[in-house]
């Protein structure tokens, strides 16, 4: 039972255009959401996050939107660049024991064509 779902395994976008990566979750107890980016042969690196009390967070070309009523978040990359080509993981934070753990989605492979 996947609590965090990324329904698009892959996405292809032209350089300079907008990339929109989507993520849905089922557990209403999640209170923080994060996006990680992973290049081949490297570990994931943190990209951007959003608290459940906000609906938008922006950092340069990257913006994350959260729709709590729909249990949906999305990552927008504008403008997309070839170096953005990577696997993007959506993650949600859940309280467990003395701390929080992350629950990850399956990932979306983004290809930005030049």
């Amino acid at each position, binding site marked *: 039972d996947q609590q*965090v779902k*990324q329904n698009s*395994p892959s996405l292809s976008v032209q350089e300079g255009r907008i990339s929109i990566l989507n993520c849905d979750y089922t557990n209403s107890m999640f*209170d*923080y959401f*994060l996006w*990680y980016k992973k290049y081949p*042969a*490297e*570990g*994931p*690196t*943190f990209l951007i*996050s959003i*608290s459940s009390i906000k609906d938008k967070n922006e950092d340069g070309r990257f913006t994350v939107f959260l729709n709590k009523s729909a249990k949906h978040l999305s990552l927008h990359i504008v403008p997309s660049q070839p170096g953005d080509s990577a696997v993007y*993981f959506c*993650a949600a*934070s859940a*309280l*467990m*024991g*003395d*701390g*929080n*753990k*992350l*629950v*990850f*989605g*399956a*990932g979306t492979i983004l290809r930005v064509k030049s």
Partner: protein
Amino acid sequence: DVKVTQSSRYLVKRTGEKVFLECVQDMDHENMFWYRQDPGLGLRLIYFSYDVKMKEKGDIPEGYSVSREKKERFSLILESASTNQTSMYLCASSFGTGAQETQYFGPGTRLLVL
């Protein structure tokens, strides 16, 4: 600069062998995590540790154990490797246990069990 290192990038083992995966972080982080990454399933938490000599089960602990004798080192042990444990293994660490804490990942160990 934040650094998480894993002892091997690639490992090939035979069914029934005991396998040790080592992870070291140099950031004096309290928390360390072991995940496995599989296509279509994303990252799944195996075990984590909030302190030396302390461990907690994640979502898929069966067939694995861990050891944390020193703060900077977290080992994942496969007591008797099986083919379904062929996967990419990722270690991560974080400073605190809050929802907003960033996890820093190592480059991963790709394990093949024959």
